[in-house]
């Protein structure tokens, strides 16, 4: 009995996660197109790299069920969460070194490191 109820519930959750993930991906891409300078675009790209990827992979995990396929999907998610901030950080750092200037960014208040 529970099986018959669980199956559509899982499918629905998977559908919601999948559409949410794609929506977030498109949001990030629109942000990358719309934001004024490189550094603000970096934040928009962060949306597609974190939650969007997480939701799409979680949706696939729900479809795969408890199996080694889900474990591999979890590895992919872990790897993306592990490396995407490193790539973003390296991008920002390279941009600063290459002389890309942030457009009208205010200086932060609690600046002046000792």
């Amino acid at each position, binding site marked *: 009995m529970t099986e018959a109820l669980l199956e559509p519930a899982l499918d629905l959750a998977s559908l919601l996660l999948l559409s949410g993930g794609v929506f977030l991906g*498109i949001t990030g*891409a629109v942000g990358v197109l719309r934001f004024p300078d490189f550094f603000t675009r970096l934040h928009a790209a962060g949306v*597609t790299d974190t939650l969007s990827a997480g939701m*799409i992979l979680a949706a696939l995990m729900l479809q795969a069920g408890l199996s080694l396929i889900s474990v*591999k999907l979890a*590895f*992919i998610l872990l790897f993306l969460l592990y490396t995407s901030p490193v790539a973003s950080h390296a991008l920002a750092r*390279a941009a600063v070194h290459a002389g890309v200037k942030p457009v009208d960014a205010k200086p932060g208040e609690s600046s002046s490191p000792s």
Partner: protein
Amino acid sequence: MLAAAAVGILVVMALALVRAFRGPSICDRILAVNMIGTKTVLLIAVYGFLSGRPDFLDIAITYALINFVGVIAALKFIERIAASPPPTRPEEL
């Protein structure tokens, strides 16, 4: 449902491609390419499910890895170039 998701991911990649062509700085282009790379990983995973062959996940992991190493390599290259000409950026040397 999976096919729709695959199309959605392709739309994201197309939008990122526009940014890659528009630039303006080299960093914008690498940002876009990196984004296309992570979306490709997701696309391979979704396609694996779509075609009922989840062994595609190994390819997805491989792609994610190569994409990461490639982006880091490109960025190191840019930093090296940015650091090399002394008249423009004397503080780097």
